């Protein structure tokens, strides 16, 4: 199987904090990490390759340092990687991003399966996977928690899609795209040989011109959405500390909760 994993290098949002005094994000020294969901996507792809043979490619759209994220994946066993990088790609929303990624996919070749993580932890939209599938005219299933079976002869994959009330079992024809959630399987560990290979691997960089991308469809220019403004979220939490022995604490808590009509109905006469 030829499998492509689309990844994103993101700031570690644990470390990105809003400075309440200046209303701006403090981003000094915030490390770039591989989007956690994408490591799960990589693991799903590697398991398919290990079971059925073939190759796994990794691709990302980002600034030059995103190549480090690709190298990290090669350390885990991914075979090849390519970086889509161009100043013209910057500021892209999900539409422009998926357009660009689609041109990259077309440039790299034919794939049986494209695997993406469910969402990126900086944007949290979960849109790029489905939008990429649509750009490529591929069927897709999002939120895959398990690949139940693969029938290479028939070109079919059976997957389980996590829904809010359980899961759907879906049969999908290859070539296709899936986005995965954590249940798909814990990522393996990198290997020393993999990391050595990653250090030396030539990672081609594809620019807008190299992709033949339409300048009106990439980057900030090609994005249907715009950020109008940013502001600090309202600080939440009344931070009322309820002290005392457990019995007293519970009494006080119930008193507070009963002040709300809906909650009062739930706790009743307690």
């Amino acid at each position: 199987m030829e499998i492509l994993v689309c990844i994103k290098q993101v700031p570690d949002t644990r470390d990105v904090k809003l400075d309440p005094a200046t209303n701006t994000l403090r981003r000094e020294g915030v490390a770039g990490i591989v989007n956690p969901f994408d490591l799960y996507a990589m693991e799903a792809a590697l398991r398919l390759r290990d079971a059925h043979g073939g190759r796994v490619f990794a691709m990302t759209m980002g600034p030059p340092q995103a190549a480090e994220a690709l190298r990290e994946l090669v350390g885990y066993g991914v075979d090849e990687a390519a970086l889509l990088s161009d100043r013209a790609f910057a500021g892209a929303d999900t539409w422009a991003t998926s357009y660009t990624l689609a041109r990259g996919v077309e440039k790299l070749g034919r794939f049986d399966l494209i695997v993406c993580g469910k969402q990126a932890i900086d944007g949290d939209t979960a849109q790029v996977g489905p939008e990429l599938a649509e750009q490529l005219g591929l069927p897709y299933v999002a939120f895959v928690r398990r690949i139940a079976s693969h029938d290479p002869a028939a070109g079919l994959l059976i997957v389980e899609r996590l829904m809010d009330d359980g899961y759907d079992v879906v049969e999908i024809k290859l070539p296709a795209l899936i986005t995965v959630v954590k249940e798909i399987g814990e990522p393996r560990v990198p290997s020393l040989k993999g990391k050595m290979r990653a250090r030396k691997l030539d990672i081609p960089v594809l620019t807008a011109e190299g992709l033949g991308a339409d300048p009106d469809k990439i980057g900030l220019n090609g994005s249907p959405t715009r950020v109008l403004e940013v502001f600090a979220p309202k600080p939440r939490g009344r931070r009322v500390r309820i002290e005392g022995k457990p019995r007293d604490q519970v009494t006080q808590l119930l008193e507070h909760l009963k002040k709300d009509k809906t909650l009062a109905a739930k706790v009743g006469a307690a």
Partner: protein
Amino acid sequence: MSLKVNPELCTACEACAAACPFGAIEVVDGLARVNEKCNLCGACLEVCPVEALSIERQEAGPVADGHEGVWVFAEQRHGRLAPVAFELLGQGRVLAEKLGTRLSAILFGWGVRNLAADLFAAGADRVFLADDPRLAGFTDDLYGGLLTRLAIEHRPEIVLGGATAMGRSFIPKVASALHTGLTADCTGLDIRASDRLLLQTRPAFGGNIMATIVCPSRRPQMATVRPRVMRRGPVEAGRAGELVEVSLAGVEWMDRTRLVEFVEDLSEKVNLVEAEVIVCGGRGLGGGRHFGLLRELADLLGGSVGASRGAVDAGWISYAHQIGQTGKTISPKLYIACGVSGAVQHLVGMQSSEVIVAVNKDPHAPIFDVADFGLVGDLFEIVPELIGRLKAARG
């Protein structure tokens, strides 16, 4: 469209560079310089003390090309309308009034004709109904393809959907096919009167900042909203409206994906994204067997059980219960966190809960910074006490 720095006025004070959330400004050789990371949010304009910055914008005039109407995708699953559909109709009604236009609901399924009345009652002026055996189960190809075709044919200016598993799965496909903008997980929706633009507000960077997004030139403007974020509107039983029957004719890709079966999660009566009350267990529980205690509390309050990533990773409960950045995002009326430390990635998933109660023996646990009511103590004493009081009240 770009951010311009007036070199005559710029004093290289670096206030703009500090204010930029995206790292797009650097002061080099005594002048502020903008790089490609700029997305014209305007945060820098507000802080420049000498007004050296300006943004040239293409003015998006009132949309004159005939797009009108507010649409709500009324999700139904297994014959039941999702609560978020009513919340969207409530907000959709407000938007439609401001725009002076009609509110329509889109209903797909098989044997769901009877649900149209509920949609009219909740404020829809029009319901587009596609009642077809092929739509009995949800597939992205059919639901997405059909909504796309309808949008092309009828040209709404706004399309809203619930940010449920179904919505987050297929609505991006529609936005991509229509070459338009989609804003996910909006916490606020409003209309800018001057140009009828939909203002879509959502959290970004793991909830560290709020952003207002617009889709100036493309139509429809699309947005998804999480369950329990918007309020339902008033219900007028028996209210009449226009029913438009829709067929699947012209929809491509009928057979690339096939829904084989649905396996229900029987561990929760109410799924987490719709739950009004959630009792969440973290590492402080010390073991999977203790989730039974939380289950008892949740049942007494008519709620569901959630878990932090630590508890799921320890194998104490399944991933379907995980709340947080790599799990589910929920916003119940009441959220009770037991033995949860409150790491940022967890807070991201639950901080829009209306009332947060935290129980933890560590007084410095970060969860207490976002809680409304913090109980420092042993959850194995406090939770049974609470359960006992609730039970006693029932008699």
